[in-house]
């Protein structure tokens, strides 16, 4: 009986020849992550152990949630993270102005690599599954303990095989793939399990699409969402890291809990209606839903390809008079590239807001909080009640093309309605 990708990576890091779903293992961690809202909570837990950090080169501390500081309290949090990084000589601390949203930044910088075990005090740490790593979110205490010991315990998850075939139609993106999957299996459909994406369709997905898909594995309750390493992955990594890495492939006789088939060619632009990511509907089937705000960015959709999609729709047009459109490049590199490509000028000319990289509005922090009754189409990852502000506001999750089209028309719209 063979092993899945996830099982192979975990076995290698636990020093076992073989692991099985349900097995409790202690695995070495290759890279750890915390941010300005989870780090300050992990630090005191780490300090209670009273040991030095296991390796200052293998920890990233990224102030990205409420940075530039939104208020005095968040300034204190960012300060706690910064001072800890200095005290322990953490190599991968990145200051505002050079930083980015952690899950866009880490792969971009080449700090995370295939075959690694990565834990982060942020639920969207699962993003790095896109490059064939085992990556999962943990809380502050787990992270604090791992900063001291360089390992952590896992229950080996069973895997769900998601077989992708075909290629995405125009204006359909990775967000539509993952939302469609969550719509199918529900927000707990992969609870405690690994989602392993495979099949001939994988080759037709860009790295950006893969990052978006792995990023929202947690929204199906999954522990991780992993892609095989192929030519596109290798190409992506080549420009970013010289560090050697191990490529793990699933055995032909690996055992999966179940199989789900998705024909990429049959997908259409979708949104997740309030207040759960599983409330997925094709845009074409919606009644007229007027909106007040659009957010394009986040760890889910803040990459250059995402901004390109938005720019193709927004360029030469005007944001609807009733809409505030907030566009947030995921990192400074994305921001710079968007500037070079002319997207930033196009967004501003259209009447959109362009912000420095931040998680801000996604979790109702700042930079776009909603009032009671307001509706937002957002490329972020959660639409829970009150997620982006008042408990009586509404968030509709979508990909960047749908978000951009909605910003132009002032209602939830498909890209083709704008481009027609």
């Amino acid at each position, binding site marked *: 009986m063979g092993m899945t990708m996830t099982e192979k990576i975990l076995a290698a890091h636990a020093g076992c020849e073989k692991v099985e779903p349900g097995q*409790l293992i202690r695995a070495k961690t290759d890279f750890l992550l915390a941010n300005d*809202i*989870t780090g300050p*909570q992990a630090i*005191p*837990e780490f300090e*209670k*152990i*009273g*040991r030095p950090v296991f390796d200052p080169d293998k920890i990233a501390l990224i102030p990205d*949630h*409420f940075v530039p500081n*939104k*208020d005095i*309290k*968040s300034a204190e*949090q960012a300060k706690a993270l910064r001072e800890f990084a200095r005290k322990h000589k953490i190599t991968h601390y990145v200051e505002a102005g050079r930083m980015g949203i952690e899950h866009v930044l880490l792969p971009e910088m080449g700090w995370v690599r295939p075959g690694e075990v990565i834990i*982060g*005090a*942020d*639920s969207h*740490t699962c993003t790095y599954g896109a490059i064939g790593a085992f990556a999962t*979110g*943990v*809380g*502050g*205490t*787990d992270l*604090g*303990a791992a900063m*001291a*010991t360089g390992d952590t315990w896992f229950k080996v998850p069973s895997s769900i095989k998601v077989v992708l075939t075909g290629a995405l139609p125009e204006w359909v993106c990775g967000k539509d793939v993952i939302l469609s999957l969550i719509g199918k299996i529900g*927000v*707990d459909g992969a*609870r*405690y399990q690994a989602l392993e994406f495979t099949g001939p369709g994988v080759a037709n997905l860009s790295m950006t699409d893969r990052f978006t898909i792995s990023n929202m594995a*947690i929204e199906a*309750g999954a*522990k991780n969402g992993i892609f095989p390493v192929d030519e596109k992955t290798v190409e992506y990594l080549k420009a970013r890291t010289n560090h050697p890495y191990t490529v793990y492939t699933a055995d032909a006789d690996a055992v999966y809990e179940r199989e789900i088939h998705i024909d990429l060619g049959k997908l259409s632009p979708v949104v997740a209606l309030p207040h*759960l990511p599983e409330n997925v509907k094709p845009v074409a089937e919606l009644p007229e839903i007027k909106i007040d705000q659009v957010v394009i960015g986040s760890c889910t959709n803040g990459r250059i390809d995402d901004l390109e999609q938005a720019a193709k729709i927004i360029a030469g047009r005007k944001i609807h008079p009733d809409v505030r459109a907030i566009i947030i490049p995921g990192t400074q590199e994305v921001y710079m590239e968007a500037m070079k490509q002319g997207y930033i000028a196009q967004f501003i000319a259209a009447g959109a807001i362009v912000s420095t990289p931040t998680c801000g509005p996604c*979790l*109702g*922090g700042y930079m776009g*909080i909603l009032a009671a009754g307001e509706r937002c189409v957002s490329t972020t990852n*959660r639409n*829970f*009640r*009150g*997620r982006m502000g008042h*408990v009586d506001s509404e968030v509709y999750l979508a990909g960047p093309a749908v978000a951009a089209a909605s910003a132009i028309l002032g209602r939830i719209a498909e890209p083709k309605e704008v481009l027609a």
Partner: protein
Amino acid sequence: MDKLQGRVWIFDDNVDTDQILPGYAMAEDASKLAAFAMAGSKVADFAKQVQAGDIIVAGKNFGCGSSREQAPVALKSAGVGMIIANSFARIFRRNSINIGLPVMLADVGAKLQNGEVVSVDLETGEIHTATGVLNGQPLSENVLATIRAGGLINRVRQELNISSGRKS
């Protein structure tokens, strides 16, 4: 310490971390989190009403969403003694155990009333009501060991043989 008693608070399926501790409270100091417990939920004034030892009883996927450990910390510091649910989101469950807040699997929401007092045996999974006994899943030895140690950090310290610095 393996037996708990408290009043029941019934919640539905998919109670997410934004309901348990809204994002706007994430800049608060740990000592202030209790005031925001369940502030985004259907019981917005939960923090004012909750009494020490109260037990949350919920449906499936309790704690879905964010990895914010502040969510179970807020519940624990507000006085919540334990959480019983049909199922828990993975990170929330692990965080709860790590901070020493017991979580137990049981499908009992429909069999209990808001406000009724129950006593729970973590070792056997028995939930004693005024009229009978309901069964939940006993906590595993591994989980009980962490809960008894008062959380993961204490357990790691024990495993690493780090003394508290005090002479016993």
